[in-house]
């Protein structure tokens, strides 16, 4: 058996596939595909879970709260109140057709406070001139794309009560 000449220089294929654990950065095709597939599935599932959880949390608001007097609303045209918590500003409006409606005051674009524009019978966000239809709360102009959350309001005599939030 002849002695093979040994060189200290390792051949290139050997450096490409090192025996040392820390030098091994090779990612197999199958591992890559597995990572991409599982990663996409997890991201998609997380989206669904977030969306559903958000919906469930919003639906759970059913507490009743006295928000003011009907006479006050008639005199001003619109009235600000807080519902369901003190952190959630809302606006109640008597529309041109005489209907009582209330919405969250938080603009669905960048969370500025919307105000009632009586002359045009619409809700207007002063920050980026977004506007919402006053009868249904849907955006009619400007950057917002989603409707304002609607607050269900009941009138009992002269008193107004907020009863729930509809998204």
């Amino acid at each position, binding site marked *: *058996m002849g*002695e093979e000449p040994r060189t200290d220089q390792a051949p290139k294929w050997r450096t490409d596939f090192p*025996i*040392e*654990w*820390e030098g091994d950065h090779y990612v*197999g095709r*199958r591992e890559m595909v597995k990572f991409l597939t599982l990663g996409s599935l997890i991201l998609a599932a997380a989206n669904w879970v977030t969306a559903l959880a958000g919906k469930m949390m919003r639906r759970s608001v059913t507490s009743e709260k006295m928000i003011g007097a009907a006479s006050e609303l008639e005199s001003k045209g619109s009235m600000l109140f807080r519902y369901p918590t003190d952190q959630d500003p809302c606006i109640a409006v008597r529309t041109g057709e005489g209907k009582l409606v209330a919405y969250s005051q938080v603009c669905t674009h960048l969370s500025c406070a919307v105000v009632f524009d009586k002359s045009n019978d619409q809700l207007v966000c002063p920050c980026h001139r977004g506007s919402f239809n006053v009868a249904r709360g849907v955006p009619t102009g400007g950057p917002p794309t989603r409707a304002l959350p609607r607050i269900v309001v009941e009138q009992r005599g002269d008193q107004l009560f907020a009863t729930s939030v509809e998204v």
Partner: protein
Amino acid sequence: MSELAFFIDYSRCIGCQACVQACAECDTHRGVSMIHLETIQRSESVQTAPQVCMHCEDPICARVCPADAIKKTPDGVVQSSLKPRCIGCSNCVVACPFGVPKYSAEIDQMMKCDMCYDRSSVGKKPMCATVCPSGALTYTTMEDIQRTRRGIPINSWKFGGEEVRTKVYVMVPKAVERVDVDLVQITATPSALPEDPYDVALMLEGM
């Protein structure tokens, strides 16, 4: 205090199979024992010898792997084959001079002793060394083994023209510096060799 090392003392083995059972309880290969408990000249002796992976400094099993599935960690432990890479070709099984790797046909993968890496990497003893009642398998420091044993630990082997250095030590009598394992001498005739009915080399010569 030097770092912990694995020592095999074949002469202390009593063949109790405790290491085989303990090995099967290792979490990295639950239920399958990786250790080899060899019987030596069974017809004449009850002597047995345990064989764990020697963790060669230049692991020939990893060198011959065409799928790049066997890796050596920075602390010198040669790992079992990587599941996504092993193609079950058994090159390593044939190449290992100590006969350590086992090919498992059920999972089409090679499995071998990884010195219970989940344990030894955090300073615990490998499973077999924790249970061996006679100290044939020991995981301790060099100072401790020199203080408590008569023989000396060596980790150098010679297989024909190839010298192999291992991470695992073997206890041998004091005069020995290196274990020489003679390869099958193809050129020799059976009559020229001493008569030994259990000599594997002789058996192969006669074929």
